[in-house]
């Protein structure tokens, strides 16, 4: 834990505050547990999942529903402290950058075994890195989305894949030290090592079950036996079965877990796509917890004795502005007017779950790079009208693209939010033509590839605790989505990303955040806590800003 200390503790305090209530609940649970002792029968947790898992090989996945299951079976080198985006030791007890951030040295935990009995050691870690880097087919590469994203590319880019791979090599320095060499420094590290996609799999199991075999048949992929039937990690639970016929994934306790053993005998994920049905199943007692309750159901769930656990905010909803879409939008005063015109506080209250807040900037409070010292535009119809008049844009008409057929924690009901914003804009005299496009059927193309819109609704949930993962992703380069070219912002962001020193990086991101707030490439709107609904019988679930809840600490009261 040499390096982790200083930088992250600050964050912990802040995120911790948001989750204070929950932490205290878990603290209680912890003290209860003292009596029961470990390893005893702990019952079953049935968790209502919102979607089907794609497969169980972490490297080939990028969605929350699959990750939730994998997190119980796998460990990453570095992991996140429960309830925060703060790092803590996972399979590596210490990690240390050197060579200007181009080399990462991991000190590994001893006496850890994979579920199949294989020893966990430096060789196993390097086998995983090498496997990722050398993914053989276009199919496999196209599915390793986070790897491609974080590490830039593969040993041999297949198909249409492009990009310079960041990864150079991994060397085992004895049993318990793994050294990873990169081509250049990247600000996303070390946080990105905690991504679930980079979970460490058993090399024996991967080889035995042909893990890399991803084949394309008829417009879709099929995965290896490893990914479908034999996922093998080091985590507190082991894979038992996936039964598509009754939509359940069952995990059982790993009695040889290296850390504190799980209390539960079993975790069952029951996939129930419909939120209404999840709520009723929870109330009927056939599941004990579920993800993403509808904000409209909070009250009635609580009235029925269920608990709502809100995760600390780690997302942002924004109103994108495409400066190429309408020449008037190139005028910063018009963009300021839009900022002023929107009643973010009311939006949060009316259409978003409790705990949602209006935002002045894109970064969550808890991230390095957040600064209070940015230009603000509190709700004011007068200011909006004045600025529009000054800019000669009184008769402004904007094409407003709103996605449909999608629901995200930061945007539970896009049409409702879009309607409220359109209403706000109309009230300061901007004519709004709302264009509704299905999320998977044209919205992304129109907005992010073709830039057909003037303004649009989009958002983001952070993957790990790094400012670049937010503003770098949005404004790091010229994009059709925003239609601006501001080298000052681009430079500031890429400089921050390449900075290894924490304090310097923080300053760089703060600077970039200020520039963005001034330039208004998009209007930050709101940030909404994603929630879990939990039966009162369940203790020990710690909501995580990264939706990284581990069920090893969970207990379920016998009914």
């Amino acid at each position: 834990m040499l390096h982790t200390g200083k930088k992250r503790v600050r964050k912990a305090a802040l995120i911790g505050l948001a989750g204070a209530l929950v932490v205290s609940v878990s603290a209680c649970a912890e003290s209860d547990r003292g009596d029961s002792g470990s390893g005893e029968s702990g019952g079953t947790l049935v968790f209502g999942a919102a979607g089907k898992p794609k497969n169980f090989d972490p490297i080939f996945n990028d969605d929350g529903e699959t990750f939730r299951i994998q997190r119980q079976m796998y460990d990453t080198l570095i992991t996140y402290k429960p309830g925060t985006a703060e790092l803590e030791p996972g399979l590596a007890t210490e990690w240390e950058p050197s060579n200007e951030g181009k080399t990462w040295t991991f000190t590994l935990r001893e006496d850890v075994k994979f579920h199949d009995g294989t020893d966990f050691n430096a060789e196993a870690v390097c086998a995983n890195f090498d496997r990722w880097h050398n993914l053989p087919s276009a199919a496999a590469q196209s599915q390793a989305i986070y790897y491609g994203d974080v590490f830039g590319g593969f040993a041999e880019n297949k198909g249409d894949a492009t990009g310079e791979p960041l990864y150079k090599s991994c060397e085992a320095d004895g049993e318990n030290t793994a050294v990873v060499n990169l081509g250049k420094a990247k600000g996303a590290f070390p946080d990105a090592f905690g991504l679930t996609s980079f979970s460490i799999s058993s090399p024996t199991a991967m080889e035995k079950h042909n893990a890399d075999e991803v084949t394309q048949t008829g417009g879709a992929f099929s995965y290896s036996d490893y990914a479908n039937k034999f996922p093998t990690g080091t985590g507190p639970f082991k894979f038992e079965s996936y039964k598509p016929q009754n939509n359940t994934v069952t995990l059982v306790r790993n009695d040889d877990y290296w850390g504190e053993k799980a209390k539960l005998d079993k975790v069952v994920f029951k996939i129930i796509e419909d939120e209404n049905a999840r709520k009723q199943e929870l109330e009927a007692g056939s599941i004990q917890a579920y993800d993403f309750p509808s904000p409209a159901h909070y009250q009635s769930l609580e009235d029925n004795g269920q608990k709502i656990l809100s995760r600390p905010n780690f997302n942002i909803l924004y109103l994108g502005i495409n400066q190429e879409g309408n020449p008037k939008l190139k005028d910063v005063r018009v963009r300021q007017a839009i900022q002023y015109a929107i009643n973010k506080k009311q939006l949060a209250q009316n259409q978003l779950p409790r705990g949602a807040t209006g935002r002045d900037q894109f970064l969550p409070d808890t991230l390095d790079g957040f600064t209070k010292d940015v230009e603000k535009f509190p709700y004011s119809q007068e200011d909006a009208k004045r600025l529009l008049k000054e800019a000669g844009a009184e008769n402004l008409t904007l094409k407003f693209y709103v996605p449909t057929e999608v629901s995200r924690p930061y945007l539970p009901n896009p049409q409702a939010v879009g309607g409220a914003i359109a209403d706000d804009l109309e009230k300061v005299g901007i004519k709004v033509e709302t264009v509704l496009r299905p999320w998977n059927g044209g919205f992304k193309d129109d907005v992010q590839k073709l830039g057909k819109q003037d303004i649009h609704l989009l958002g983001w949930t952070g993957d790990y605790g790094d400012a670049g993962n937010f503003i770098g992703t949005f404004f790091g380069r010229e994009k059709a989505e925003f239609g601006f070219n501001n080298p000052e912002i681009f430079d500031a962001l890429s400089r921050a990303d390449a900075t290894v020193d924490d304090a310097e990086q923080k300053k760089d991101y703060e600077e970039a955040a200020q520039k963005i707030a001034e330039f208004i490439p998009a209007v930050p709107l709101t940030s909404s806590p994603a929630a879990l609904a939990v039966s009162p019988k369940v203790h020990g679930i710690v909501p995580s800003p990264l939706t990284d809840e581990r069920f090893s600490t969970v207990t379920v009261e016998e009914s």
Partner: protein
Amino acid sequence: MTPKLLQRRRERIDELADAGDAGVSLAKDALRRMRANPVAITGAIIVALFVVLAILAPFLAPKDPRTQYAELKNQLTPESIPGPMPGFLLGSDQYGYDLFSRLLVGAQQTLIVGVLATLIGVAVGCTLGGLAGAFGGWVDTALMRFTDILLSFPSILLAISVAALFAETNQWTVIIAVSMVAIPVFARLLRGAMLAQRHSDHVLAATALGVRRRTVVFRHILPNALTPVIVQATLTLATSIIDAAALSFLGLGDPDPSRAEWGLMLAESQQFIEVKPELAFLPAAAIIIVALGFTLLGESLREALDPKKRR
């Protein structure tokens, strides 16, 4: 060899088509019988009220149904939706619109969707059926083969498939998807009625007198063939409204909440059933009553026109 199911569906349409046989005098006769039938009167009253409401909705609505009101929004959260308050008879909906005004205007939108879907069904269907009936021969064969294919599909599945094949859904895709269900029915209906008419005495007489074919078709055949079309249209209105609601529920409806349509209002408000039950129950009740009204009217019309039931 024709599949039995298809044949049965055809027969049911053809039976109705025959009802037009006796012509205009029959319509008068039917009207007289309808007036004595309490079921018909109930249906007619519901339909009349609904249509009047729909037409007058913009004038009756106390508030602008397309404006979100600050008074409502101030108290609105997803967990509590304001109930009745001064000026807002039924309070707010989940967006901050005036629920009462939205329900009123919803009648209009619902009628528009129902009527347009039915009209398209009638127009396209009758054009196809009329061409087939007037020309016969290969035109008839080809057109009827086409309608048979449409007729073979279960209604809501046809609507779903059509809706799913549009790039995006909006008011028009809903109308078109719903009308696709009606097109083959009307095509077959009008064709059948025209064939029946063609052999009726007054048409034979007109033809024998050397009246031109076009005149015969428009003056003599069409007017009489229209009676069963009107009956079927009444029934189609009911199913169109329900089908449109089902599409909304499946997420294939008109996604724009600023247009108040009962089906959409119902589909969107189900999660608020515990927060404010009337958000779901009022549009649901409205749909049921109106669909029932059209069904009662249509069924009693059909019965009144049924030559077998006449005594």
